């Protein structure tokens, strides 16, 4: 792979809350089509790191490059433009409760991308169909199941044509019988070559999708490597995944 393939690069991200260091210098280089998966115990900094990646939490220090162009995260204009290109999927979906599935998708298209109503609607239908919700476009979030809500959230993020998608435990707020539909959507994205950084405890996703696993603990990446090299006896990652396994009963 050449340098031009690098989509997102961050260096030395640090963040403290009330004097407690949560991130102690995390780096990440993401190539086009690459999928990196963050694993590790709760409180290890995975979620904070993901939210720092699009500055929903502004890091105390750190440099950002998008397609090798430096991003000035302190310029509001540049930050808003950067966020359009780095989509985010949240654990709790974060849908807009007063808008239908359709309007959840079209809002940013119209207000941020300034598309006209017709074009935005057409785009929203395409994205909602991709996640299998073409018949639910007029329903409000309160009328959707958890899995459907998360799929609307994914459609909403994809409609912005992001170059990178950040996923913060996308299935962990769902009932076990609803995770499957969201996992299928994520697998489809991977198949189409979407570049992703995901925090997850889903062994099957870690095992089959990850190009690289980053094991985070106490605000640093303590191990990284492909599933092949990392998920072998004796590594922290394997030990952690074993524990997840025995909890979920899922085969690895």
């Amino acid at each position: 792979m050449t340098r031009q393939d690098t989509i997102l690069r961050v260096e030395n991200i640090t963040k403290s809350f009330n004097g407690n260091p949560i991130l102690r210098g995390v780096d990440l280089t993401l190539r086009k089509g690459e999928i990196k998966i963050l694993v590790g115990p709760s409180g290890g900094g995975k979620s904070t790191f993901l939210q720092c990646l699009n500055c929903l939490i502004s890091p105390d220090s750190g440099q950002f490059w998008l397609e090798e162009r430096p991003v000035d995260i302190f310029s509001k204009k540049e930050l808003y433009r950067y966020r359009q290109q780095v989509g985010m999927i949240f654990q709790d979906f974060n849908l807009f409760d007063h808008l239908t599935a359709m309007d959840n998708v079209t809002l940013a298209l119209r207000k941020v991308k300034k598309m006209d109503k017709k074009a935005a609607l057409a785009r929203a239908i395409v994205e909602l169909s991709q996640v299998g919700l073409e018949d639910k476009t007029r329903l409000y979030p309160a009328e959707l199941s958890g899995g459907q809500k998360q799929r609307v959230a994914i459609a909403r993020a994809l409609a912005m044509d992001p170059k990178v998608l950040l996923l913060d435990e996308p299935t962990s707020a769902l009932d076990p019988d609803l995770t499957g539909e969201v996992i299928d959507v994520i697998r489809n994205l991977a198949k189409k070559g979407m570049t992703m950084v995901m925090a997850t405890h889903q062994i099957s996703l870690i095992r089959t999708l990850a190009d690289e696993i980053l094991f985070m603990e106490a605000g640093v990446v303590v191990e990284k490597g492909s599933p092949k090299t990392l998920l072998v006896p004796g590594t922290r990652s394997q030990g952690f995944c074993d524990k997840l396994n025995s909890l979920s009963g899922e085969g690895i």
Partner: protein
Amino acid sequence: MSPFFQELFDALNRGLIMSIALIVPSAAGGLLTGIITGCLRVFGDPFLRNVCNAYAALFRGTPLVVQLFILYFGFPNMGIYLTPYAAAVTGFILCSGAYQSEYVRGALLSIKRNQYLGAQALGLSKFQSVFWIIIPQAMRKALPGCGNEIIYLIKYSSLAYIVTVMELTGEGKTLATEYFRFTEVFAVIGLYYLALVSLAILILKKMEKAVHIPGFGKG
């Protein structure tokens, strides 16, 4: 009908029109003031936040009668002359706005932060996130409280009479004194207010229904 009741209804109907002329602009102005100051108290920069907090504290913390006296009897000392009607409406808007801002503030704070994050993650600016996501939801939640304030306003509009606006209470009081028939006159005035409030409740219910969305309140 006896001449007394003929005269009573003529006077009260005249007063009713004046009352409505006081209530409608005061309710609209108070609501608008409340929405703007409520938003600034939550999302404004520290300076504007403090100014609006001080405004709310002042107008919620002093009696409306005192506010009206200052506007009508006090301001002329400073060279500002307000007509009785203008003084009453100004006082009502300022007082109502202070209370409305509190309902709006509470509703804004009740909207979970994660929707704001969702909007930010899509590249919406702070203003866009607040304007398109937070406010539409907060207004739905604030509506019952704001309606309550409007119902209060209908009744405290009777205070306009002490700055010599001849509205419902003022007209009635004059007639009652003249005929010395306080019970009948004030009972009928009470019914007039009851009718006004009932009408307001009906309109507010219709509004709540019109902006209803699944997941907000009942249903």
